């Protein structure tokens, strides 16, 4: 086994990106993700890359659009209010099909909110906080190691589909340290990007990075192309992790930090004989709806555990489509649910139910 080192989640976002071949970072300070730009400002010069502290989040996302459109692996990171400011830019990037990676280390909202971890930016990430019918691919890591691994996948997937990828975490994942193994990706090579706007050198035909469709047919065609791509992504890119779902009566659906807390709570409940499992979506879009539908058909019931007023639960309900129960346990922004609370919620869910065997 390669050497384990301790790393902060935020540093993992940064180093993970660099290991994935990202050489352009454009960002703006905001807690709790400041270690990402700070790390980048130190590391990028070392690897021949570029770090710019943009004048704002709006500028940062548009710099990413520029660099990504010019063929570079580029990224930005921010936290909730800063991500809100990027919505116009994200909609442009998705439409112009510029690959790039956007990290949101979410914090308590809404408004200025606080600095505590949060999962209340789920809707914004998966339904489209910007205008129009577009999708980002959304990855939700659950550990520092997974941050590193998913940053690589994020850049690869972005290039593969010419689509922005968001890596959505919360302040806890950004701030915590865990042992990780850093590796150099053997297959690291940035694909040719003949579509990129790099100059009409040597007779290359004109490339235009663009999201304008003034004529209605042009715009509708643009949308049809995007929607077709989204269907392909939904087919191919769903990721999730299951733990103990086979014999489970109740399945906790949770991602990121709440999946970790749920894991501990499930262990506690299992120790008391409750048949509980964990379903952890790793892609929030495309959402693992098909698999959840299967589990619902198989008679399992569900509970989402979220650090929000209940957002992912809508996607779970849409997947389950009335075939099974979907409960909710959450803490509104500002608090992380404790293992004890989640354990109690699980126990309560079993109360008064006839025992399956």
């Amino acid at each position: 086994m390669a050497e384990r080192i301790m790393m902060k989640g935020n540093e993992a976002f940064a180093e993970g990106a660099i290991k994935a071949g990202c050489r352009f970072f454009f960002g703006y300070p905001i807690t709790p993700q400041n270690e990402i730009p700070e790390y980048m400002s130190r590391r990028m010069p070392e690897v021949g890359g570029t770090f710019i502290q943009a004048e704002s989040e709006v500028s940062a996302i548009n710099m990413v659009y520029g660099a990504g459109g010019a063929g570079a692996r580029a990224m930005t990171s921010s936290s909730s209010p800063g991500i809100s400011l990027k919505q116009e830019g994200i909609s442009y990037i998705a439409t112009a099909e510029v690959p790039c990676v956007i990290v949101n280390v979410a914090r308590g909202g809404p408004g200025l909110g606080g600095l505590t971890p949060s999962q209340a930016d789920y809707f914004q990430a998966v339904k489209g906080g910007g205008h129009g019918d577009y999708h980002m691919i959304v990855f939700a890591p659950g550990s520092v190691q997974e941050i590193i691994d998913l940053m690589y996948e994020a850049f690869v997937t972005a290039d593969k589909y010419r689509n922005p990828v968001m890596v959505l975490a919360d302040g806890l994942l950004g701030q915590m340290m865990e042992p990780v193994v850093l590796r150099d990706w053997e297959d690291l090579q940035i694909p040719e990007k003949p579509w990129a706007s790099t100059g009409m050198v040597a007779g290359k035909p004109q490339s235009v990075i663009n999201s304008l469709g003034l004529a209605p047919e042009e715009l509708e065609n643009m949308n049809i192309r995007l929607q077709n791509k989204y269907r392909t992504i939904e087919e191919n890119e769903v990721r999730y992790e299951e733990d103990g779902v086979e014999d489970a009566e109740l399945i906790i659906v949770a991602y990121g930090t709440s999946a970790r807390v749920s894991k501990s709570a499930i262990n506690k409940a299992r120790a008391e004989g409750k048949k509980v499992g964990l379903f952890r979506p790793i892609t929030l879009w495309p959402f693992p709806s098909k698999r959840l539908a299967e589990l619902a058909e198989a008679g399992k019931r569900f509970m989402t555990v979220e650090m929000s007023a209940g957002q992912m639960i809508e996607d779970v309900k849409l997947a389950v489509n009335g075939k099974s129960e979907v409960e909710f346990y959450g803490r509104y922004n500002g608090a992380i649910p404790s293992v004890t609370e989640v354990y109690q919620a699980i126990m309560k869910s079993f109360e008064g139910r006839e025992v399956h065997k």
Partner: protein
Amino acid sequence: MKQVFGYPESLQNRPNHYCPGCTHGIIHRLVAEAIDELQVREKTIAVAPVGCAVLAYNYFNCDAQQAAHGRAPAVATGIKRALPDRIVFTYQGDGDLASIGMAEIVHAANRGENITVIFVNNAIYGMTGGQMAPTTLPGQKTTTSPYGRDTATTGYPIQVCEMLNTLKAPAFIARVSVHDPKNVMKAKEAIKKAFEYQVNGKGFSLVEVLSTCPTNWGMTPVEALKWLENNMVPVFPLGTFRSLEEVSK
């Protein structure tokens, strides 16, 4: 007989969508001529704004990105940092650059980004149908200053060159006009110089070009040129504000 004036290579050979007599067309040609003369067409990447010039990529014969309203300098920054040996320019209107895009232009200038900005100031929002711009003249009637721009509540036209000239990094800043052939030639010189600064790696260059909007000014194109000369030039004095060190030709 020799051709002494023809169609520049850096301009795509197709009609433009600008209104009759709109000087956007002249400015496009000047940019194309400058690119031709510096022989950098293949290396050039244009950044189109949101404004009447939104379709600029259909006219310039080079690669291009279309930027969100006001963000062209940020987009250009991204491109130039990714491809430092390419020539990157933005083409922006006064609403785009001086209103919504104020932070972006100030900071790109302040970073000394090695890009060229062609700033087309027609004292109005052309594309959206003639609303007030930050550069609209005192008393000028527009669709959102129907009683004439009131300086007491909306202030005065922003002088972008003068403002950016307070920054240390920019290499070249000039204001020109296209209201007659003589000024068109001067404008051409300034635009070419701006690109030369970039080619020579000197940093940020910007040329503000005073331009007309006959449609939304409610004038004939010829009247519009006169109005520009008589009303805009006094408010936006022509000249070179910054010329960091002469570029080697």
